[in-house]
């Protein structure tokens, strides 16, 4: 007697989802991402309560929360956030404002590209922390030196990725534009720019992370304000809860900016199937 197996192959009609299910589909990533955080926080707290490590060294979620309540409540943390924000914003904005147009321009001209690209890549790969003391020497310990340092870290990611985007332009797309007699400007808008955008956005995402490193490194070296200074300052007093609070703030900022760029990528690349 032959055995038969029946397999259900239907997934159900995707058009008939309830509102809860639809919300879950749309925000699946966010929901599960939050779950990950909650899991780590619970495990961390549990480990602290069970005495698996010394709380004075690594703090714990509840202690960090208390520190946050204290410093946000009294308002003493705001000036630090404000000055770090200004350094980051200024340096990063300058990196974008210079990096994108320069990258596009250099990428468009082969010989200029040859002259500059090796040089740029050399500077890009050199650890910028090595020249931080020099920048402080020249620009002081105020906003300027930090913004310059942030700029240096972000700028090369932006320009190198923009150039890579221009290099990635497909010969057949260029041929097509030329075959139909597109002007140079139209060729730029319809071929070079759309090819470059994905590379550029990746560059921006990397740059936003590096810019954050720039803020912290510069402030830990020499500063009297800022979140890096805050971490450094309380570190010397072994106030690990405040140190961790600073780290958590940086982490949250990193996640937010990364998520913002991801949204941008999605919006600009409806034509790329793998993003959806």
């Amino acid at each position: 007697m032959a055995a038969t197996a029946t397999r259900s192959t239907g997934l159900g009609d995707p058009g008939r989802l309830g509102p809860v299910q639809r919300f879950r589909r749309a925000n699946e990533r966010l929901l599960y991402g939050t779950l990950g955080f909650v899991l780590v926080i619970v495990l961390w707290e549990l480990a602290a309560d069970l005495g698996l490590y010394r709380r004075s060294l690594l703090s714990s979620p509840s202690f960090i929360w208390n520190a946050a309540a204290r410093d946000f409540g009294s308002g003493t943390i705001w000036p630090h956030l404000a000055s770090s924000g200004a350094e980051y914003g200024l340096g990063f904005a300058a990196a974008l404002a210079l990096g994108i147009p320069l990258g596009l321009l250099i990428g468009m001209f082969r010989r200029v590209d040859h002259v500059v690209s090796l040089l740029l890549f050399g500077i890009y790969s050199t650890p910028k922390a090595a020249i931080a003391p020099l920048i402080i020497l020249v620009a002081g310990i105020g906003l300027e030196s930090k913004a310059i340092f942030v700029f240096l870290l972000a700028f090369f990611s932006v320009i190198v990725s923009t150039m890579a985007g221009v290099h990635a332009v497909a010969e057949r797309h260029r041929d097509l534009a030329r075959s139909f007699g597109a002007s140079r400007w139209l060729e730029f808008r319809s071929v070079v720019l759309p090819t470059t955008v994905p590379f550029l956005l990746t560059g921006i995402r990397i740059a936003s992370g590096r810019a954050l490193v720039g803020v912290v490194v510069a402030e830990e070296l020499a500063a009297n304000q800022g979140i890096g200074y805050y971490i450094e300052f309380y570190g010397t007093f072994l106030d690990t809860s405040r140190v961790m609070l600073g780290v958590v703030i940086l982490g949250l900022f990193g996640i937010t900016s990364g998520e913002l760029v991801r949204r941008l990528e999605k919006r600009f690349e409806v034509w790329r199937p793998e993003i959806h």
Partner: protein
Amino acid sequence: MDTGFALIARGVHMEYRDRKSDTSLVAIESMDLDVRAGEFVSLLGPSGCGKSTFLKIVNGLLKGTAGEIRLRAAGNGREDAMVFQDAALFPWYSVLDNVAYGLVCAGVPRKQARERAMPLIELVGLAGFADRYPYQLSGGMQQRANLARALAVDSEILLMDEPFASLDAQTREVMQAELLRIWNAAKKTVVFVTHQIDEAIYLSDRVVVMSARPGRILADIRIDLPRPRALDVKRRAEFTGYADQIWKLLTTHGVSVAAPTDAT
């Protein structure tokens, strides 16, 4: 220029210099070709016979070493439009914007270009797909969009560079029949490059057979099959007669076409 001709090519010659061996390679050897307005002419030959190169020289994408090309301009000034081998659609444009692209290149405002592109999208059988992106289309549909884009600029001549080469056999036959239907509706002159004998015969008024290294014309064969042609014309005796004639021509000139040939 005689108004009866859409394309007159004289002494088109293409030579590449190989830097390593310092020898020159003749891709096309002094080629003459006349195509009448409204005619469908295929350039048939093995890879390396310079047929695609010739098309690119006509289009102006490449400069030949020597020779002269004369093209008749259509009413709006555009002489020729290219249908590329790999559809070469912009993945970041919708079908509509891809089809409108040639018009935008010609300076037509985008909105107007889109309006003028719409009927051609329908003509090639892509109605309802105007808002899709290329990745959402099958290979055959991409080639339809490719064709519509070239038709949209309303040029005198369509230059088609093996447009069906990457399609599967069945889709290719469907597209061949579709091309004849569209050609009949659009009334264009077509220069069609292919390496497939049956495709060339089925589509063309004339098949220009070429040999490789150096690329030159072996024969210019008039195809006297009644139009409109349904696909079953491929099984008629005259059709297979043409196929045999071209096959012999290619094999006696030492060109291997798919199957191995007897060395004599």
